[in-house]
């Protein structure tokens, strides 16, 4: 997720840079360590592009990857998320146009990044299933721990 007034900055400057917050795009983007360059959307995004949009209720900015392009919407998921979001195309206003991973600049056509992008799209269904399973397993382990050691707080 990104903090700040991005739509206005994109309109005025044609580009926006920010440090990402959260773990939803891990391992590509790390919490408060990596900075992204966002450009305004001018046409349809492609499968594998990373889209910037706002959640309608909270207004939170989200930067997640497009895994399917439909006629009027995208199916989008974070690289470290188990749930796919359906996002109307007109709600997406920016896309990732490179990022600094720590000090290292990763251009959109970087060979390693291109491989990662293809890989993460190819394994997306299995990866999402694994993330959901891992979440359930962790919650189950936490419940077991509380049942066995009821007086210890987490």
């Amino acid at each position, binding site marked *: 997720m990104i*903090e*700040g007034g991005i739509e206005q900055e994109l309109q005025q400057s*044609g*580009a*926006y*840079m*920010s*440090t990402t*917050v959260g773990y939803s795009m891990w391992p590509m983007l790390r919490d*408060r*360590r*990596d*900075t992204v*360059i966002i450009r305004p959307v001018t046409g349809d995004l492609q499968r594998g592009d990373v889209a910037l949009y706002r959640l309608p209720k909270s207004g939170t900015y989200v930067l997640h990857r497009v895994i399917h392009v439909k006629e009027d919407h995208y199916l989008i998921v974070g690289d470290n998320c188990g749930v796919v979001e359906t996002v109307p195309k007109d709600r997406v206003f920016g896309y990732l146009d490179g990022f*600094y991973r720590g*000090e290292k*600049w990763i251009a959109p056509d970087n060979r390693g990044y291109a491989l990662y992008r293809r890989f993460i799209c190819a394994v997306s269904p299995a990866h999402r299933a694994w993330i959901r399973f891992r979440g359930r397993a962790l919650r189950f382990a936490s419940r077991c721990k509380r049942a066995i050691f009821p007086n210890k707080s987490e």
Partner: protein
Amino acid sequence: MKTKAGFMRRKLGTQEVVVAVGEASKQFSGIIRLNETGAFLWDLLASGDRTEAELVDALLAEYDVSRELATADVAKFVATIRAEGMLDD
């Protein structure tokens, strides 16, 4: 004075900007755009402890400007980044 840890100079297209990472990004979530002299002064402050007088001397050595203009530019730049909490005094 020097720049605080967590504020990094980055390239945004043809522009130089400063962004915050790590703990610093909890206090500052935007960007600061630097012009050519701003980037020059930023690099000096990022590389070690400097006084305003040292920054003025460095600016005079690098650019063909009067001492009055250099002094005013340094004072304005320092005030701007200090106001954003980017300086350790």
